[in-house]
């Protein structure tokens, strides 16, 4: 004999509708955390896009532009998908923003190290970690200062040269008390480009269980010379979508393009 209380079909439908409404609201709130348009920086063509695999995303990116200060931007990925990652995403983003905005002399390394210590206990408890690429770009010197806590793929495309993967310098946030990240410098010349993506791009999979992979991503990046940042991001996303079709998108996909121009 069934001892569970009977629930009417109307009640189930009502609960589902309420849940869907709440998820839609959550998505709207999360969407509002992403930049609407990138800031206008002299000599820089900048674009970012993020596509969640489901209603909510564990990926994030942000730009922080303040007068007379270098542009700070970051891209992050809360390991895991769906709701658990999406719950931690706003927290990770807020802490990185707060560190970038409140430290007296923030650098990518100092931002990541502080964020790691703040997030560590909660991430350990949640069995998760966050990969993050943090960077500061000074338009007057065209110098990019960056630190990378376990984030991949980051692709450097020098004008006329071969694309290359930039390895992380530190471990992901939430893994160890020390994250090892350090500041690295990259001088960007006109035509040089940096692509900071999340692993939802290279790990995208088609119906034959083939991954898009890093090699295809590098080849694709190599073919983008002369195009604008927005065109490049659209091209990357579309190529991956075509590769995977008809398989649905399985992981969040985020890409930020930073292209140095002649201005």
């Amino acid at each position, binding site marked *: 004999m069934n001892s569970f209380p009977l629930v009417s079909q109307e009640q189930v439908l009502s609960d589902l509708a309420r849940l869907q409404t709440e998820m839609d609201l959550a998505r709207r709130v999360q969407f509002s955390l992403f930049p609407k348009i990138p800031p206008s920086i002299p000599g820089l063509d900048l674009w970012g896009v993020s596509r969640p695999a489901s209603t909510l995303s564990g990926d994030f990116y942000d730009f922080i532009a303040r007068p007379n200060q270098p542009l700070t931007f970051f891209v992050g990925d809360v*390991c895991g*998908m769906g709701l658990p990652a999406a719950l931690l995403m706003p927290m990770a983003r807020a802490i990185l923003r707060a560190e970038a905005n409140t430290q007296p002399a923030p650098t990518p390394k100092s931002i990541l190290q502080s964020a790691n210590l703040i997030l560590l206990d909660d991430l350990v408890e949640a069995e998760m970690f966050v990969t993050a690429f943090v960077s500061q770009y000074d338009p007057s010197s065209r110098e990019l200062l960056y630190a990378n806590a376990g984030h991949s793929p980051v692709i450097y495309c020098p004008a006329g040269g071969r694309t290359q993967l930039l390895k992380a310098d530190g471990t992901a946030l939430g893994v160890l008390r020390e994250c090892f990240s350090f500041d690295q410098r990259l001088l960007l010349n006109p035509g040089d480009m940096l692509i900071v993506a999340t692993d939802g791009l290279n790990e995208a999979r088609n119906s034959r269980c083939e991954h898009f992979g890093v090699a295809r991503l590098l080849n694709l990046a190599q073919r983008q010379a002369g195009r604008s940042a927005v065109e490049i991001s659209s091209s990357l996303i579309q190529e991956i979508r075509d590769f995977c079709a008809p398989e649905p998108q399985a992981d969040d996909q985020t890409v930020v393009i930073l292209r140095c121009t002649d201005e």
Partner: protein
Amino acid sequence: MNVKTRFVDNVIILDLEGSLDRLSALQVRQAVIDVTKEQPVHVVVNLKGVDRMDSSGLSVLVLGLRRARENQGNFCLCSLQSPVRMIFELTRFDKVFEIFINEEDAVLAAASQYQSL
């Protein structure tokens, strides 16, 4: 994903075969939890049969490392295939784990630590 467990001396070997990704992560997570229950526990994860791994797979291995350490144990990896090794290098997780070229070295390292406990 094929998951097998065996003992070499006092070290538990977890043999994984297949793709260690979001599809297999839950299955491997349970295996990792099972083998890191005892105290002290020393585990070698043999990744010889793992051809691909993503961040979900890394997450499961981090869980195993944390649990082993909590139980005064060691958690080593060995026999990584090239695509898997590349992921560890790109993301700097090679700084987090003790990684060995072959199982014998990994077992030796885990067992020697075991004896010192």
